[in-house]
């Protein structure tokens, strides 16, 4: 990920060229949630009627729901009236250069190998990206537009392509889906929208950075990606959040739709603030991500590297509706210190000859608790459906835990599901072997962990894979030895 000076300068100049407002402050609504707040969010965003209706329908349904209790996670009850549901960036002191940034933060960036331009972005120095809930311009829009690819913020898409939004919003994750998805449907602020038309292979990896910027602001991203017949798109989502003391709620919804012969690859590196070593603070990450292989021979792949958040509750899933469609889930989840991760996937086989692959790598360290929870469901009509599931857990130390809950429901006798699972401890023998070759303890741990995760990392785009490896190292600092 080395970026030469020329590139950095070009990027830096570009940012300047784009002339982003440098003073950013949150223009937030009062705490709490009621219909007035929802109407106000919708009004401020100048939304069409159908969207307000969608929000209100969701809100009214949400009032009848209770937070899910089945996950293997513990946290105090969330006071949903104590949360700010909307904040738009507005004047806040922006730093003039990296010299003004907390050196500790810079040290982390350096370890991650984040290029200078990106460091500035992350440290709030100068930018293009997503700030809190409202998106700011995205880079290569013009070039994409030439090919008919629509890529931009969700709010923008609501204005420019309301018909597409109306057609697909809630088509994969209905407004009534689950407590947090329903909450998101009522109050979502912004996110990304991507539409790749028939036969177009998106020429670049689409990426976005999400950040939680303002204090005590719930983050409710909404992302919708549609790939028409024969289209291909690879989407990268990277997350970093600055240090915060309060627990922050993050409840995003991502919907993917793939038509005949279309392919969507969705990669995530999630590094929200995990809380401190004593388990204080950190992000609550309750996310609903789901893709629908609507067309024949379509394919949706989720790859995730989850290193952050105090709590991760996330099950990127695929509904395999079209015949011969393929769903994939590759995951690395890390729980260090007092982090809790309950994550996995659902593969719902509806069409004939549908195939799914699940590779889950859980790493537990410190007092971390890591749970894989997965459902493979094969419906009656899904003749010759195939699933392969592999769940591996790695333990560092003796205070942490690894748990596996694989559910398999088969309603078709011609179908087959395979499940493999392993649990191992990082071995003293392995560490000593590395050290005897001159490799320092920390490097040895990183090497062994990265080896453990290799099957997942190889699914990530090159740059992301490098970043993910370094991120794991930083996240595990001091957890061994």
């Amino acid at each position, binding site marked *: 990920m080395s970026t030469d000076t020329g590139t950095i300068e070009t990027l830096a100049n570009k940012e300047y060229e784009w002339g982003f407002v440098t003073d950013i402050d949150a223009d937030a609504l009062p705490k709490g949630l009621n219909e007035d707040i929802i109407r106000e969010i919708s009004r401020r965003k100048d939304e069409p009627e159908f969207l307000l209706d969608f929000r209100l329908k969701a809100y009214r349904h949400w009032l009848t729901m209770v937070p899910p209790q089945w996950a293997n996670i513990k946290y105090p009850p969330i006071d949903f009236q104590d949360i700010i549901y909307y904040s738009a960036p507005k004047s806040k002191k922006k730093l003039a250069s990296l010299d003004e940034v907390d050196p500790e933060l810079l040290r982390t960036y350096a370890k991650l190998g984040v290029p200078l331009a990106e460091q500035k972005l992350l440290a709030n120095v100068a930018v293009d990206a997503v700030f809190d809930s409202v998106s700011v311009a995205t880079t290569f829009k013009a070039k994409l537009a030439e090919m008919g690819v629509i890529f931009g913020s969700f709010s923008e898409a609501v204005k420019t392509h309301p018909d597409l939004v109306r057609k697909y919003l809630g088509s994969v994750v209905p407004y009534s889906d689950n407590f947090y998805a329903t909450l998101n449907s009522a109050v979502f602020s912004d996110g990304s929208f991507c539409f790749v038309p028939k036969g177009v292979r998106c020429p670049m990896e689409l990426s976005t950075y999400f950040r939680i910027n303002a204090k005590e602001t719930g983050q409710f991203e909404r992302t919708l990606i549609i790939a028409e017949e024969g289209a291909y798109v690879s989407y990268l989502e990277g997350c970093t959040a600055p240090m915060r003391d309060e627990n922050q709620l993050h409840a995003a919804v991502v919907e993917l739709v793939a038509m005949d012969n279309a392919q969507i690859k969705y990669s995530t590196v999630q590094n929200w603030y995990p809380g401190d070593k004593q388990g204080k603070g950190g992000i609550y990450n309750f996310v609903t991500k789901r893709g629908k292989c609507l067309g024949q021979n379509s394919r949706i792949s989720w790859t995730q590297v989850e290193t952050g958040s105090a709590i991760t509750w996330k099950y990127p899933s695929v509904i395999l509706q079209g015949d011969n469609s393929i769903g994939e889930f590759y995951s690395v989840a890390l729980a260090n210190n007092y982090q809790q991760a309950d994550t996995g996937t659902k593969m719902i086989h509806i069409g004939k000859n549908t195939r799914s692959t699940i590779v889950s790598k859980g790493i537990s360290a410190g007092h971390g608790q890591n749970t894989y929870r997965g459902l493979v469901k094969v419906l009656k009509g899904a003749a010759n459906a195939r699933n392969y599931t592999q769940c591996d857990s790695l333990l560092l130390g003796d205070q942490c835990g690894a748990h596996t809950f694989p559910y398999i429901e088969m309603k078709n006798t011609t179908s087959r599901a395979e499940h493999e699972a392993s649990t191992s401890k990082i071995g003293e023998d392995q560490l*000593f*072997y*590395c050290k005897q070759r*001159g490799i320092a*303890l920390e490097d040895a741990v990183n*090497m062994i962990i990265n080896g453990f995760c*290799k099957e997942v990392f190889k699914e990530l785009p090159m740059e992301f894979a490098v970043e993910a490896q370094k991120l794991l190292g930083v996240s595990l600092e001091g957890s061994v030895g």
Partner: protein
Amino acid sequence: MPILEIKDLQAGIAGRQILRGVNLTIAPGEVHAIMGPNGSGKSTLAQVLAGRDTYVVTGGSVRLNGQDLLDMSPEERACAGLFLAFQYPVEIPGVSTSYFLKAALNAVRKYHGQPELDAMDFLKLMKQKMKLLDMDTSFLSRAVNEGFSGGEKKRNEILQMAVLDPKLAILDETDSGLDIDALRIVAGGVNSLRGPDRGILLVTHYQRLLNYIVPDYVHVLRDGQIIKSGDKNLALELEARGYGWLEEPVAVH
């Protein structure tokens, strides 16, 4: 100055004394063999020298090129030039042999203030060393020791030794589990690494290995002490007569 100087080394595990005062000096260019029956402390000696923390050193001193070895961490010892070829090489799934060796080599180089080797130079070095051990370059992309046969594992150890170029190489039961062809190849690799600046310590149960790697000195370890030293002929004598004749006569009361 000797490469290795062990004086009255005492060490044990969980309160049980295993080494009871070992004395051994290895000068540059010398090959020493330590032999002894099972449980005599041979492997313990190798592990203690490498810095395995499951063993507790309770007395004595060890110097590597004049440096206090016991004061150093395992990785420092490795960087300072101590290499242990493991009796049971460890598997590291998902980590390629070339990645592992490059990390090791660059750690050692960094310790000595040398610049890291880039990918091209590293590959060149590897190819050259692999020829020595009749190894195919496909080894490089395989995960460290994962799915390796016994012979491949041992060859991999010697390859690492060749690449890391240590001052002192300790070979712990390197002959165990090898058929005669593999033994020849491994021994050939070790012999090619003999040199005026390097010391080699062979830890072995059988004399067989010493037919291929001929030692300058042979020591017999028993109950944690070296009870007899000699030249290569001592090994032959042990082969013929076993360890029994070395027993001190039982005192009659």
